[in-house]
């Protein structure tokens, strides 16, 4: 249980990587952009992949009526997410410490993982909802109003995951370094749970034998 608890402490700490590294990365390449434009989505805002990328993406997007990319103060998520992450890290570390001291069982470990997963899925849902809005809620006076072959207005929602062709741009959206820190950290808590679960059995067995001999 001690080893499991240490892993349970390390796991949530890895989420702190989200404060240094982007969660998600969207790259836009086109024939005239051999060096693609890109945005890094951090938990506290959207930033350039290379300097001036956001400005240049906005510059291109205005032709098709997309709004400017949000500044951190434009979306509540960018102030809330860091608090949620910090809170979850604190809770996770606390659970690990209590586990180490034998105050809580390994079930708390998986409990933390489930809560974090739910929050993660909610976050993804929210992120996707923003992208839908960003890509479809277009300026009615846009310079270029493009339609799909069926006559519906073209949407410019970037893919949540993977690649999409949007006009002359190839858009690739993938988890970035921060997300890998988060996934690894969360997986470690699952590992901690399994170790705790296995350990608990052997402890029980040992205890029973003890009772038998005494």
């Amino acid at each position: 249980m001690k080893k499991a608890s240490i892993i349970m402490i390390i796991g949530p700490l890895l989420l702190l990587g989200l404060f240094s590294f982007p969660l998600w990365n969207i790259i836009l390449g086109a024939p005239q952009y051999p060096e693609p434009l890109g945005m890094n989505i951090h938990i506290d805002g959207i930033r350039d992949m290379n300097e001036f990328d956001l400005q240049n993406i906005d510059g291109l997007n205005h032709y098709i009526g997309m709004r400017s990319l949000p500044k951190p103060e434009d979306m509540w998520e960018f102030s809330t997410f860091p608090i949620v992450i910090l809170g979850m890290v604190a809770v996770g570390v606390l659970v690990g410490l209590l586990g180490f001291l034998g105050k809580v069982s390994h079930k708390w470990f998986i409990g933390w993982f489930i809560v974090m997963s739910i929050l993660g899925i909610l976050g993804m849902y929210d992120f996707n909802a923003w992208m839908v809005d960003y890509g479809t809620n277009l300026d009615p006076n846009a310079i270029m109003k493009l339609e799909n072959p069926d006559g519906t207005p073209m949407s410019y929602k970037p893919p949540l995951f993977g690649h999409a062709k949007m006009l002359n741009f190839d858009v690739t959206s993938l988890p970035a370094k921060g997300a890998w820190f988060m996934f690894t950290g969360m997986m470690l808590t699952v590992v901690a749970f399994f170790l705790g679960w296995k350990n608990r059995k052997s402890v029980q067995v040992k205890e029973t034998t003890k009772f038998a001999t005494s």
Partner: protein
Amino acid sequence: MKKYRFYVLMLLGISALLSSCGNQGDGKSSSNGALSSTGAEKSYVAPGEHDEFYAFISGGYSGNITVYGLPSGRMFKEIPVFSQFPTSGYGYSEETKPMLNTSFGFVPWDDSHHPDISQTNGELDGRWIFINGNNTPRIARVSLSTFETEEIIELPNSAGNHSSSFITENTEYVVAGTRFSVPIPQRDMPINEYKGNFKGALSFISIAADNGRLNLEFQLIMPGFNYDLSHPGRGKSHGWFFFTTYNTEEANTLMEVNSSQNDKDFIAAVNWKMVEEYVKNGGGTKVPAEYAHNVYDEHTHTATSTMKKEVITVNPLDVPGAVYFLPTPKSPHGCDVDPSGQYIIGNGKLSADLTIHSFDKMIAAIEGKKFDGDAYGIPILKFEDVLAGVVKSGGLGPLHTEFDGKGNAYTTFFISSEVVKWELGTWEVLDRQPTFYSVGHLMIPGGNSAKPFGKYVVALNKITKDRYLPTGPELEHSAQLYDISGNKMELILDFPTHGEPHYAAGCPADLLAPNSKKIYRLDENKHPYAVLTPDQAKVTREGNEVHVYMSTSRSHFTPDNIEGVKVGDKVYFHITNHEQDFDFPHGFAMIGQNTSELLVMPGQTKTSLWEPKKVGVWPFYCTDFCSALHQEMQGYVRVSPAGSNVPLTYTLGD
């Protein structure tokens, strides 16, 4: 099962056929060496690929430098230096007009000759390239991160600034000699009193190590010969500079005959470190002079011109041991120093042979005081005592020599129209290749440094004739590219060059490409009329001067409509390009502009002066196809009669 076997056999058969085809192909390319090394293959740079070398080729009477790639011979850019350039507005915009200021006023043109790249420890360092204006003596410094001219300094007491602009091995000085001797100081005197009265100035211009700023430190006032070309010593001869001379006869009329009478002219060897020391210790004479010093600031995007009022001149006789003459046959033209600094090559343009002097022998002769008289008090060393060897070339009219860094030299022969490869030390001719036609300079990347990149040589010809499709009487010049990586030179490409290329300078692409600037940062723009955000755009009037603070971004001007301008006004359009993306310039053109359009790079501000002469509503537009909505990038200026009361207003989108 049988069927199955049949298929297997068939598959085997096909694969055997395929593989034998492949082998055949391989065999062809390996056995037929000649095919695999055609010029086309060697000079071919596939679409999207980059060249191995940059070549900076002087434009001669275009006044500019053109930038090429080698081995493809593709032209990338023309850098305006001494000439007005409507393509970008250089010399037309308010910011760059001061660049072409001189003591003669605004001189919108020059004759650019000899580019030279900055060096550290004798090796190319790729910070700047320098070039001389031959006609109105000037030296320019061009940045190799922006590929723009940053500084031009005029040279007083000089005329026909030809033995220029060569730099010393740590870029301490850029050196400029006069081809035409003149009265110093200039005065009203009979031309036939030339002899003994005219003088030749050799100018030493220091280069600040941090920002490249030029300063004319001193001028050595030499006898009235013609100082034709020069090169720095390097390695062991660092601290010396060598100048070829002709017209040591000091003739002043029918020069082609009268200045060709002496069997030998001189190479002047100047110990500039000695003269530098002399000047540092207060030597030399401060004399009145008038010359312009023009500096362009990358952050204000603006040039300023300052008129300097004096210069230090040095009489060579006052610095004993600093200057010697090395007799050199037949009006030598090119003066070249090998990568080790040991050999000084005089290319006697009216002879068949090359004269090679030895630096060691020169020092020994100086120490042994083996003089053969003097010229105006300057000791002449004995020809035999300094001679290292003679190349019996078999060609005629040697002009210039470059080196491959592998012990070989390559000399151009103007009259016999060829490049001759010979070996340093043995003086033996190893190879010769014809050029098309009448080659002047040649260039090996790094050829004027301690570390040449001896892979290609470019021959820069004076006569084109039938090399390309005819274009009337006036033709561009032709250049040939030779692969010199093998024992024999191999002609691999023929390409036209712009203006009249004299010398050129080349360097490996990776020395410059990573540092090439992509944009100017808007947040570093210190132009006094810059508009840093579109809401700062405005139009102001001061008397009859109207200043339009205008920003551009894809695809509009802010503001786009202006009213209240009157006939007789001077309207200054200050255009700031708000793009911060690589290769997104915007242009600006106004109907009836008496200057030129502007091409404004991202983050840059440029100003065009427009003096409306007619009442009406006059459009302006973007000249660079900037975006899909480029054609919409336009605006109007309403011009009212002089004295009318139309208020000054400006709008965008309402």
